[in-house]
């Protein structure tokens, strides 16, 4: 995103907003009144955006929905760790937008948004086109703080891949892992909170360990962590010990896990206490809301987007909703499941608002499966409601898989993890 052209754009487009207001008291009435259907534009075709586009159409076929996504296919981050473990190929993680277009009547545009004019309710696209909307949904995922650690950069990611957006980076990391010698050291740098997919780095360490155990069993994995605790920690550590012995070493922030400096030429990482040399480094940088959210003034000074928990409407710009990893969604984690749940609530709220109704009570859910080994799955679940404190977890519900479960339980969760993937993919892109 270049220096924001938003201000200039505002000047040009400012006058257009007043006319649109009358148009959508009810979609039916808008159509009858000859003003056309209510228009929603969704930016970003991932778990949040694609769900929102589909569910808007399901809830009210009278709403015109345009989904803007630069790529004509989407490779999911969920299950991309399994590629590293040799359990999946990239093709099985690759989704497209054909069904959204053909079956659900979503107008999918493979375009890039360069500017949002909140006051004028218009978007500017890279092709030079301008799009008007009645409500906008922004679901751009995450971006990286490239300069948070000395020596790391977008260019350095070609040597020390992040692989935290699935695609070429996943394949690059896999290539490096396959080229590593038996007895080599794989270092995973886990990011500070908040970040996309809290159990993800630890599932990744598990899948790398699975590959190494089969092919390069003398190798070692070190997780250098900025944090002192992590998601499903006890379950991961029990599973690692049981299946991989002492192959995986986790170094928490309090014991010198925070990386201060990297050197891509020497393949070294410096913490406050140590200097580590690695054969392969998976460096997952600190994160912010997606670029377009930052550039459009939707984020706060910490880089994430404050929203009304009932509708996911931005607290910075009315008429714009922010869902998925970019939003500040209270107790909900930044997961694909949560993004999809937020998207469904956002879609229902938008349809209600178009009809002049008060949106119904939200119900938000998360379930995240992680795979420690092919037949060893674990999960965390949560049910969430909106209270005066925002999105909070329903007490007494949710939580992680039981600690001392039999092998059959872990195997069942591995199977259900795959079942979850099949279901959510068909629920979103099918």
């Amino acid at each position, binding site marked *: 995103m270049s220096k924001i052209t938003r201000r200039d754009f505002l000047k040009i487009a400012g006058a257009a907003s007043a006319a649109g207001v009358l148009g959508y008291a009810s979609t039916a009435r808008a159509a009858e009144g000859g003003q056309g259907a209510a228009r929603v534009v969704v930016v970003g075709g991932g778990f949040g955006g694609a769900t929102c586009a589909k*569910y808007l159409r399901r809830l009210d076929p009278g709403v015109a929905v345009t989904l803007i996504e630069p790529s004509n296919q989407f490779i999911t981050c969920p299950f991309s760790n399994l590629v590293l473990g040799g359990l999946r190929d990239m093709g099985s993680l690759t989704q497209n937008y054909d069904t959204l277009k053909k079956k659900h009547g979503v107008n999918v545009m493979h375009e890039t948004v360069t500017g949002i004019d909140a006051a004028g309710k218009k978007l500017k696209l890279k092709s030079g086109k301008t799009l008007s909307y009645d409500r906008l949904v922004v679901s751009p995922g995450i971006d990286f703080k490239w300069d948070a650690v000395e020596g790391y950069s977008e260019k350095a990611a070609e040597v020390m891949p992040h692989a935290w957006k699935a695609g070429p980076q996943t394949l690059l990391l896999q290539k490096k892992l396959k080229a590593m010698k038996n007895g080599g050291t794989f270092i995973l740098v886990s990011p500070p909170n908040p970040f996309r997919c809290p159990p993800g780095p630890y599932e990744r360490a598990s899948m790398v360990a699975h590959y190494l155990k089969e092919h390069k069993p003398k190798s070692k994995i070190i997780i250098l962590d900025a944090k002192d605790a992590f998601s499903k920690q006890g379950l991961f550590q029990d599973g690692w010990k049981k299946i991989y012995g002492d192959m995986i070493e986790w170094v928490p922030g309090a014991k010198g896990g925070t990386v201060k400096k990297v050197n891509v030429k020497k393949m070294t990482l410096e913490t406050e206490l140590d200097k580590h040399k690695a054969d392969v480094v998976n460096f997952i940088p600190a994160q912010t809301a997606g670029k377009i959210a930052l550039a459009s003034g939707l984020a706060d000074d910490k880089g994430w987007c404050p929203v009304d928990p009932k509708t996911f409407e931005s607290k910075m710009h009315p008429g714009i909703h922010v869902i998925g990893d970019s939003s500040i969604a209270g107790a909900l984690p930044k997961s694909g*499941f949560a993004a*999809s*749940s937020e998207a*469904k*609530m956002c879609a*229902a709220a938008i349809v*209600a608002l178009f009809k002049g109704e008060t*949106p*119904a*009570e*939200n*119900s*938000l*859910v998360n*379930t995240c499966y992680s795979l420690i080994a092919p037949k060893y799955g674990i*999960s965390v*679940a*949560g*049910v969430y409601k909106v209270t005066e404190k925002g999105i909070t977890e*329903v007490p*007494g*519900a*949710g*939580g992680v*898989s*039981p600690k*001392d*479960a*039999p092998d*059959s*339980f872990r195997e*069942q*969760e591995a*199977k*259900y993890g*795959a*079942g*979850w*993937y*099949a*279901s*959510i993919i*068909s*629920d979103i892109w*099918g």
Partner: protein
Amino acid sequence: MKIQNSLSTLLLTAAFLAGCATEPPPPAKAAPATPAAAAPAPPPSPAAVRNMISNCYSCHGTDGRSPGAIPSLTGKNAEQALLVLKEFKSGQLAATVMTRHAKGYTDAELEALANYIGTNLR
């Protein structure tokens, strides 16, 4: 009565869960049901029920039709669905995640979800 109840539960469980029939027993003794709040919660509105049920689709497939290993929600009547949901909530019925999910809903919400399953998810 008691015997009859547990018998029908068993049958329904088998019927409802299909793919879950081989599910392992709970590792620890099942926790007792969370005590209900002092005043019974009012039933959720139809739109709120649609919001709730839509979250189920992320694991059970759109409109409860699962394409994979997780059981579908289709083909159950409201009574069957409610019995299973309540037993997930109480922990009487063993499950991997459903015991954790069911505890997040009031009895009135489970009833509304069961009615939705019985009426709309064929």
